[in-house]
């Protein structure tokens, strides 16, 4: 009996790459400074109590959520933090559950994007306590002495409350042709043959849900959203270049090599630090830049022949 119990209490199943990376000290220091400035700014901004009649005793048993609220369509509104108190015992452990509880019971005017509640659609990406994460798979810190800050994705235009304008992100994704392109037809009528090793190259790339958490936490993308494609889009570009079934590799590399699109990556590392699915865009982008360098050398070598 005891033996069976020990096999049931197994380590939880992780997707490929969801173990937290051994981030080096530089990234940790960067994250601490960024999140403390974000929290510092959040602390001095305007806070409105949603329910001022709560007693201190009631408040001490509940978790405080400071949620960014702004309705740009309303001319008298301005960005502010509204504080809600939620009893953590009544809700499941994730940030999305807290937001939906607040929307159902306290304030139904709160706007947010959400769909699958399991981290696969990429809709609910928002800034939870300083880090860009998917709210449906990010657990609330149960320390009741600290408030939890929820703000929309950074450096994006706000449509309402936690909903941001993602059109630039999607148009950039479209420019890399994120689909299989072939010159030769299939053998037979079944499927494009791919070996096991070639398929392994795609692990860690195909799981991306395009939540935009990495791109919106990259300072380089904040300063140049028009010309730099961003880690999410570049990781998908790498995914199509490295796919052995795709035959337009040289054309894809040519398109990426021509502009400043990839060179804005300064190897900051916030993208891999913040990815809610545990993927590593930084590593993929370094591989991609190496491939582009090799392609440029090949082009020069073949031109001089």
């Amino acid at each position, binding site marked *: 009996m005891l033996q069976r119990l020990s096999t049931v209490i197994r380590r939880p199943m992780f997707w490929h790459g969801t173990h937290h990376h051994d981030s080096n000290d530089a990234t940790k220091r960067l994250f601490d400074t960024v999140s403390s400035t974000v929290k510092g700014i959040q602390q001095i901004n305007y806070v409105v109590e949603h329910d001022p009649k709560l007693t201190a005793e009631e408040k001490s048993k509940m978790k405080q959520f400071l949620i960014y609220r702004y309705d740009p*369509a309303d001319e008298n509104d301005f960005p502010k933090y509204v504080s809600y108190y939620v009893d953590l015992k009544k809700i499941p452990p994730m940030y999305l559950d807290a937001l939906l509880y607040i929307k159902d019971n306290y304030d139904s005017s709160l706007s947010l994007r959400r769909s699958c509640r399991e981290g696969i659609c990429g809709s609910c990406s928002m800034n939870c306590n300083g880090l860009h994460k998917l709210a449906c798979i990010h657990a609330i810190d149960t320390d009741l002495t600290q408030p939890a800050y929820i703000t929309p994705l950074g450096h994006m235009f706000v449509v309402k409350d936690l909903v941001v304008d993602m*059109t630039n992100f999607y148009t950039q994704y479209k420019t890399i042709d994120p689909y299989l392109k072939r010159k030769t037809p299939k053998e037979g009528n079944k499927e494009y043959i791919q070996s096991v090793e070639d398929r392994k190259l795609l692990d860690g790339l195909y799981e991306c849900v395009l939540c935009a958490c990495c791109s919106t936490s990259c300072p380089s993308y904040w300063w140049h959203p028009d010309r730099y494609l961003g880690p999410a889009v570049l990781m998908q570009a790498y995914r199509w270049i490295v796919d052995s079934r795709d035959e337009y590799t040289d054309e894809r590399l040519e398109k990426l090599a021509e502009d400043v699109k990839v060179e804005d990556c300064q190897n900051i590392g916030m993208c891999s630090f913040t990815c809610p699915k545990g993927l590593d865009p930084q590593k993929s982008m370094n591989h991609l830049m190496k491939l582009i360098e090799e392609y440029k050398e090949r082009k020069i070598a073949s031109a001089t022949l």
Partner: protein
Amino acid sequence: MHSKFQKEILQFYRQVIKWANLKPEPARLTIKQYAQNEYRKNQNIPKKKFDRIEFLFRQGKNKYEIWKDAKIDKIQMH
């Protein structure tokens, strides 16, 4: 003198009117009226509230991007 941002907003207005002038009859008039209404409604926003102005400008641009390739019969305001 208009600032650069004010010029951009006015240039956008001209762009919309030029686009509307190429459309056939019921669409042309209603699109022009719609654009004029939107601009007149918000013409008195003080220069300081550039947040609001930028938001309205972006909204207008998004609508233009979506509608410019579409076949429009007419725009009606209720």
